[in-house]
């Protein structure tokens, strides 16, 4: 009975299952058909903001694996890394002189702008792939397509461009947006690393790092790594309380102030 059972298991179930898995594999990993695969890793999948947070540096590394079908690429491999932070609405305002004073006048809202955007590559983006591919994959700070709306409801393409440029400029000044065409370094023909600087002003949320492998201008493989940025410990507690229980937070802030003032008057009591 036992022998029959084992026989049944092996012949009747296990072998077809293995065959099925092997058969399914290429479908799940489309890279196999393209002959190159990317194997990547990141130094840290989560950035924790604690009281001593002044920014962080992520190290991304990876290797290009080739198989027998891989053909030699005339120009070698190129890597483009795009790290995108959580999408949020960002309002851009333009000052005008009104009665001698510089005051905000026109505004545009970019409703799905990234809170963080870093584009890194091993050489100039224009040399890596075609303009249409760069537009398609959002390769380049100026090639993002955020939904923009004018504060007055009027649509003016020229104005939209001016405000988009201002958005990029301001975000770059805060080091939240960056484009570094020497940010990816090839250590050998196949091994590469990229360093991503995360400034202290980074927004919290889920981040995605897209790693794209190009060869002779064509996208050969792509991988996405998720990471998250969150406040931790006291920072997390304070922030959560302030946003989710603002009334309690406000009362606690007042009680703390009263205690601090009372403590000071006791400590410095004059004789």
């Amino acid at each position: 009975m036992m022998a029959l059972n084992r026989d049944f298991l092996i012949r009747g179930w296990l072998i077809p299952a293995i065959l099925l898995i092997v058969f399914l594999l290429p479908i799940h990993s489309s890279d196999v058909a393209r002959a190159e695969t990317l194997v990547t890793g990141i130094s840290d999948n989560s950035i924790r903001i604690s009281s001593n947070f002044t920014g962080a540096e992520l190290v991304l590394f990876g290797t290009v694996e080739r198989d027998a079908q891989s053909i030699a690429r005339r120009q070698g491999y190129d890597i483009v890394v795009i790290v995108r932070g959580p999408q949020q609405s960002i309002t851009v305002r333009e000052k005008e002189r009104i009665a001698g004073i510089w005051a905000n006048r026109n505004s545009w809202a970019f409703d799905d702008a990234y809170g963080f955007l870093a584009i890194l590559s091993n050489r100039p983006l224009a040399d890596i792939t075609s303009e249409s591919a760069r537009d398609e994959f959002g390769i380049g700070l100026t090639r993002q397509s955020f939904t923009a709306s004018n504060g007055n409801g009027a649509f003016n393409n020229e104005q939209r461009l001016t405000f988009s440029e201002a958005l990029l400029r301001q975000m770059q000044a805060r080091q939240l947006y960056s484009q570094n065409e020497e940010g990816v370094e090839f250590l050998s023909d196949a091994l590469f690393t990229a360093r991503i600087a995360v400034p202290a002003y980074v927004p919290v949320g889920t981040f995605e790092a897209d790693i794209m492998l190009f060869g002779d201008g064509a996208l050969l493989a792509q991988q996405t790594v998720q990471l998250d940025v969150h406040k931790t410990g006291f920072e997390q507690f304070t922030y959560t309380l302030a946003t989710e229980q603002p009334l309690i937070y406000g009362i606690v802030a007042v009680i703390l102030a009263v205690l601090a003032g009372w403590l000071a008057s006791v400590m410095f009591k004059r004789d």
Partner: protein
Amino acid sequence: MQIYLPIAELPVNFFLVLFMGGGVGFLSGLFGVGGGFLMTPLLIFYGIPPAVAVATEANQIVASSVSGAFVHWQRRGIDFKLGSVLLVGGVIGSVIGVWLFKLLRSLGQVDLIISLSYVLFLGIIGALMFVESMRAIMRARGGNAVPLRRPGHHNWIHGLPFKMRFRRSKLYVSAIPIVVIGAIVGVLAAIMGVGGGFIMVPAMIYLLRMPTNVVIGTSLFQILIVTALVTILHATSNQTVDVVLALLLMTGGVIGAQFGARAGQNLKGEQLRALLAVMVLLVCSRLAYNLIVQPDDLFSIAFGSGVE
């Protein structure tokens, strides 16, 4: 050493902020003023978002007015009845102020209004104080002390209806000007992050003719309750109170105020006031300069769609 502020969402230099709190605390102890009108602009110059600076400074003023209010309460220096009427205005004013603040924020105009209010009030107060102290110094040099003009017992305020009797202040006066003063101070506390003593004390002395022994105590009582309310209102409607920043400022502030109060005892009143006036005018002109001179980049960004 850097410390990350959880609500302002940026790191600041721990010792520098402590030192700022201490410096302003020293000056407030020296001159016997609240210091909110110096601290809020200083925080904005440092790079703290104006909305956070205002709300957090209101929180700090709660701490700095507690001990003073307590001392005056023990000395029976608070007219609680008049203080309560002031508070009726204070509550209305701070609710309006925080609502206005939120509205201006969504319109992208809050920074401008904060700056403009400061330029206006610091300019007026600084100029008045400067002129007054210069006259006092000249008089002292001249040697002939001019007697203070005794305020008359009646002015137009006393013709208004809804009169109430305030026993401790020995006043029989209309409730209207008291509520209005309270409301103005409430609005200023919410929009500028100040206690408002610089408006309230002169108004109490010159408009209401309150006796000086209850003026400071009663105004501190009003400031304490109004800034506490403003803190809670800003926390609930704007989420801009940064407790970590407030605690740093409080720590520096209370220590600085002790040294300031001691140093003040060795200086002449009119010279102190002239010095304070010069400082107020300096802060005022720095803020005015920022409004008038063309900024390097005309564009600015704000996170959030604006319409909340």
